[in-house]
């Protein structure tokens, strides 16, 4: 027990004596959260719109000005003919073109319907879909205003946006960034720490010491646990104070769940270090192998429910996915533990499994 205490103390000194590294480990998550929290948005504004008006009547002018005043569409570009659409897309100067057929208003009056072409640059399918939808709803609004007095509205939907009424993407992304950054930093730190000892040869010394494998592993995790915990606190503080993300549930619960999550991430790092021989390999796996899967499969940006079924199943092994569900539920929905015990259990199981596997791998080296 005494030697274990000494070992943990040594690990602490190791990390905190190297001021520069310690500064990086504390500073990096904060800096990244600040940067990404402000920069990453998926609200679409300033869609560059082109109008090809072959009719020039009061209806087309009204619709054009309605589109431009909606706040979504910014620049307006007049196209004399549909032929100009191609080059405008290719140069990236336009995202959407609206084409009014000749005799637009007259036909609307006479036949009760007319055609409107909405052409988007589909190379970004996401933007394309959204702006087509925006355009359609502006047109509906126009019709509603023009003709509503003459017609019964029928069923009127009253939408209630729960948890995030302003539909701010910050509320979505800040918890996601927390998960991503904590995951990467924690896994990175521990995965390197053990492989480094392997490379400089001090691992052999540890292995022949009286410490048991479990103690070595725990001793390695303990200081990083503290480091990661400080990271959790700073990241949460930034989320609340800088980005104004609410915490509608219990803060202690949120902190406890975050602790659990960093423990999972640290164990993953330890596990990576037991299966790799060099710092390089550990690094490549803990960043190269985690960065994209964590961004893509955690639900950070892309909703998991929309993915093909095999990927939805696969996403279950991404720890950040579970943490993200928990964080969003606590912060935005005010969920209590009764809603979250399953997700919590998954993280606990992952941690235990990773720890057990690492200790096992480690003991094998001893024999």
């Amino acid at each position, binding site marked *: 027990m005494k030697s274990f205490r000494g070992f943990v103390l040594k690990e602490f000194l190791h990390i905190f004596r190297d001021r520069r*590294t310690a500064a990086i480990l504390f500073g*990096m998550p904060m800096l990244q959260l600040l*940067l990404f929290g402000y*920069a990453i948005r*998926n609200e679409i504004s*300033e869609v560059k719109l082109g109008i090809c008006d072959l009719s020039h009547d009061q209806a087309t002018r009204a619709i054009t000005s309605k589109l431009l005043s909606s706040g979504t569409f910014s620049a307006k570009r007049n196209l004399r003919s549909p032929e100009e659409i191609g080059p405008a*897309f*290719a140069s*990236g100067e336009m995202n959407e073109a609206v084409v009014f057929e000749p005799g637009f208003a007259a036909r*609307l009056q006479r036949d009760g*319907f007319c055609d409107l072409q909405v*052409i*988007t*640059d*589909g*190379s970004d399918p996401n933007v*394309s*879909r*959204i702006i*087509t939808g925006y355009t359609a709803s502006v047109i509906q609004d126009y019709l509603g205003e023009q*003709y509503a007095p*003459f*017609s*019964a*509205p*029928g069923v009127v*939907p009253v*939408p*209630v946006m*729960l*948890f995030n009424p302003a539909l701010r993407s910050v*509320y*979505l992304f800040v918890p996601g960034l927390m998960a991503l*950054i904590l995951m990467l930093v924690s896994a*990175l730190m521990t995965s*390197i720490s053990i492989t480094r000892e392997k490379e400089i040869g001090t691992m052999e010394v540890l292995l022949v010491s009286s410490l048991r494998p479990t103690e070595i592993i725990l001793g390695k995790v303990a200081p990083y646990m503290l480091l990661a915990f400080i990271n959790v606190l700073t990241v949460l503080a930034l989320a609340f104070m800088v980005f104004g993300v609410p915490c509608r549930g219990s803060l202690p619960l949120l902190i406890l769940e975050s602790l659990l999550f960093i423990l999972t991430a640290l164990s993953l790092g330890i596990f990576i270090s037991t299966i*790799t021989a*060099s*710092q*390089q*390999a550990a*690094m*490549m*796996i803990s*960043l*190269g192998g985690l*960065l*994209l*899967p964590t*961004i*893509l*499969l955690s639900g950070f940006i*892309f*909703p998991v429910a*929309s*993915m093909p079924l095999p*990927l939805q199943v696969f996403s279950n092994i991404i720890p950040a996915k579970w943490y993200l569900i928990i964080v969003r539920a606590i912060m*935005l*929905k*005010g969920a209590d533990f009764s809603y979250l015990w399953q997700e919590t259990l998954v993280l606990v199981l992952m941690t235990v499994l990773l720890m057990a596997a690492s200790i096992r791998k480690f003991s094998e080296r001893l024999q």
Partner: protein
Amino acid sequence: MRRSITIILVILRKEFLQIFRNRGMLPIIFIMPFIQLLILSNAATFDVKNVPFHLQDFDRSSLSAKLAEQFTGSGYFRLTGESFGSTQAIGELVGRRADLVLVIPKDFERDLEVSGSAPVQLVINAEDGFSAGVIQGYTSQIIADFNREHRALFSAAGAGRVFPEIRIKSSAWYNPELEYSHYMVPGILVILVTMVGLFLSGMNVVREKEVGTIDQINVTPVRSTEFIAGKILPFWIIGLGELSLGLFIARFVFHVPMQGSYLLVYLVASIYLLVVLGMGLLISTVTETQQQAMFIAWFFMVIFTLLSGLFTSIESMPHWARNMTMFNPVRHFVDIMRRVMLKGSGLAEISRPLLILCAYAVAMLSLAVNRYRKVSA
């Protein structure tokens, strides 16, 4: 000149020997990226499908049943439960069993028939504001359809009148099916190539420093330019090789079209790789330990990836962030790849980002050569 080429080739040969001898790294360099490309390219989709929805029908009339049916029959929504208590509805949303609760009030049918209008409440889980917007879009479409079909039933006032309609014919150029993978594969490929290049070159020189072989190199008459060139070339070749395999997968697995020319893609990639590798070597020469080099490479990689416009569009970023992305080489290469592959852009259309990459390459390489000093001052 001939002597320089020989020396560069000698270094190149040695680097290749070392790379291929490192059994632990081989799968990480040559297999992991492609597994990721294959798996992850399908994950990136903003489609909202199969939204779980919860029904609270307080009217229980034939019209309310028809409205509910319209929702389930639309293909967008999947009914997960029904209830009649208001707190229960919130619970469904919190517990993730539903993202939409449709509340049809009492007297829904009667109001419709008498006054021609009746409200329904749509409680949407807006955690993800984007999906919430899409869900709302679906619901308005369904309700509009419902109104059109049942207009005759509503009120005497509305009956017989023609409600004018503007039929929207929408089409998306370059990607008419709106396939996400066409958009994502070129971008993810760029990230993977960048990651491998940046890390391999970033760890390289600093590793020789840690092992001590760098001193041995420094007492030889090898020139900085020769040394840096010999270090860059192997990773440059590997990078282009990985890109080729990735393009092959894009073409034959994901059926991403190639509207532009492969030649142009390779031209840009050759320059782009110089930026990435030059940057890696720069990191490697200014750091003392692999650990430091890794942290720095890590830091930039995360920033480059998230601010590349790969996942969220550059256009939705605030202005300062948008300006910042001009310094992000990944952003430019992702942009060029997408434009060339999907839109068939030629050299003229991509000249601006390409020039930025060239400038970057020159800057990085000269910095790397300059910072690698054989003699300490």
